[in-house]
């Protein structure tokens, strides 16, 4: 039987604490679209996406109405384009980006991910061709998101790929210089990339996935931080319990929406991603959770410990609430998309080094960080290599989404609008890793990758 208190709690979470479903993402395999003719390949891909995702947005809206909970984004992820267009020229790869945008426009989704390549051990010509036009693809489209996996714990780190991504990021920034270098906000460099991630910009439909699948990402930092604030001065075991219970409730809603969307669309349910995804809205912030746990400001000494506990408790609560958990599943700490992180960075409490340490205990990585536009390619490569190493050695996903905002320097800020938010330009170390980066080659896989 329903209890009035339970009803009021749910309604308060949704209306006052920004509880929402961040995304319902449909994964679509493009392997059956392969053709040796570029135009036919584009047509096949457009047809398949628009056919499979035809009812995605309407179904999402209907579920929103039924349960009274906002589903903020409806998205599509596809098989990494480098795998389905391996023999195509860079021109065709660019045309494919426009095809994805056109398909996204037709079905009315918010983002489409999978303009991607997996190059952790080496690159094919197709991978090279795709990466060579990523900057143009991101500049000429609005919803297409790109990701490149440059390392895994099993394969080690492909430093040649990291070097290529350093120049790709710089070029993406330059080509979108008139729009605060927003191209870079749609490009992620990964280690140990998950194949069922519903969140952008890193979503793609992995090779082991079924033809189509529904993955759901929840949100809910506002709900967790309010629950912690209400708990007052309890000890940390009690606090962990409160976070677990809250995460359970949030995830159950994600599971409900995921099963219903999968049923209605006649597509298998894949996973619920447990990540606490913040938004720039006041209160909907992971930094605020850490501050409510007892830090004067996010970035203070103690931040990594708070985040480690938060991340673990969210997983423990969430995992029981869903039949299949996957994707990134951890607290997100993007700077520009989290009002508390922005404030902490602006007041000088949060540095890149602290963020790097935080990424060792949560997903995902150095995310949505704006750095000076005159940062050299090599420094960006060094930043990527450091972050990727944390993922490879700790057998976890890490990623870098960094924006060298053209014409901006420390003290300035860039505004991307919407969920992408506002980023203060953060300082990087001025010393050069050039000789290290120019060595090239691969960093071998760590010894603990040999588990057989």
């Amino acid at each position: 039987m329903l209890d009035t208190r339970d009803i009021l709690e749910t309604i308060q979470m949704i209306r006052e604490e920004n509880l929402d479903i961040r995304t319902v993402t449909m994964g679509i395999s493009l392997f059956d679209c392969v053709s040796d003719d570029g135009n036919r390949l584009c047509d096949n891909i457009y047809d398949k996406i628009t056919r499979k995702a035809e009812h995605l947005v309407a179904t999402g809206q209907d579920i929103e109405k039924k349960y009274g909970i906002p589903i903020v984004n409806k998205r599509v992820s596809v098989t990494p384009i480098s795998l389905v267009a391996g023999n195509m020229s860079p021109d065709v790869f660019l045309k494919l980006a426009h095809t994805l945008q056109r398909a996204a426009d037709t079905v009315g989704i918010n983002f489409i991910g999978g303009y991607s390549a997996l190059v952790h051990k080496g690159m094919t010509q197709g991978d090279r061709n795709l990466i060579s036009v990523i900057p143009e693809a991101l500049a000429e489209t609005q919803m297409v998101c790109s990701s490149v996996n440059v390392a895994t714990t099993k394969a080690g780190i492909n430093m040649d790929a990291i070097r290529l991504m350093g120049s790709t990021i710089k070029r993406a920034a330059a080509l979108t210089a008139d729009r605060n270098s927003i191209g870079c906000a749609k490009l992620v460099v990964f280690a140990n990339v998950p194949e069922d991630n519903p969140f952008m910009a890193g979503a793609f439909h992995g090779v082991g996935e079924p033809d189509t699948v529904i993955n759901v990402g929840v949100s809910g930092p506002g709900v967790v931080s309010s629950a912690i604030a209400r708990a007052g001065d309890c000890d940390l075991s009690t606090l962990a319990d409160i976070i677990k219970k809250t995460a359970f409730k949030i995830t159950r809603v994600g599971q409900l929406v995921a099963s219903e969307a999968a049923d209605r669309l006649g597509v298998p349910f894949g996973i619920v991603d447990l990540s606490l995804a913040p938004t720039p809205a006041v209160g909907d912030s992971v930094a605020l959770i850490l501050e409510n746990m007892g830090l004067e400001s996010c970035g203070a000494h103690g931040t990594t410990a708070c985040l480690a506990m938060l991340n673990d408790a969210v997983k423990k609560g969430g995992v029981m609430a869903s039949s299949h958990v996957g994707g990134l599943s951890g607290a997100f700490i993007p700077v520009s998309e989290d009002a508390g992180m922005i404030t902490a960075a602006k007041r000088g409490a949060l540095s890149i080094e602290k963020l790097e340490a935080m990424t060792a205990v949560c997903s995902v990585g150095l995310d949505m960080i704006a750095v000076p536009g005159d940062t050299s390619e090599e420094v960006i490569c060094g930043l990527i290599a450091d972050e990727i190493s944390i993922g490879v050695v700790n057998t976890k996903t890490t990623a870098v989404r960094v924006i060298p905002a053209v014409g901006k320097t420390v003290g300035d800020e860039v505004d991307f609008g919407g969920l992408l938010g506002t980023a203060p330009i953060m300082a990087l170390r001025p010393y050069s890793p050039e000789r290290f980066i120019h060595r090239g080659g691969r960093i071998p896989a760590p010894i603990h990758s040999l588990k057989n």
Partner: protein
Amino acid sequence: MARATVTTMKAVITVTGKDSVGIIAKVATACAEYGANIVDISQSVLSDYFAMIMLADIDSLRVEFSEFVDKLEAMGKENKLDIHTMHEDIFNTMHHI
């Protein structure tokens, strides 16, 4: 996943706003018009502020559920009331294992 194991589907209708004559009647009339059978009501008035939670059986609803949600919301707006209608499954899923 485990959905609510009830035999009938219900909607939770919450109504809030400044108190005035006939709020319950208006909501009840709308429910009757669209075929929703009211099974439980909990309401209170706190210093002029009206708050009601209504549970209605929606098995014999004469319109799509989403349309029912819109109609009640619109009726609420006309009467300066905030009316939200949600399927009970969201509450069952969240609060019952």
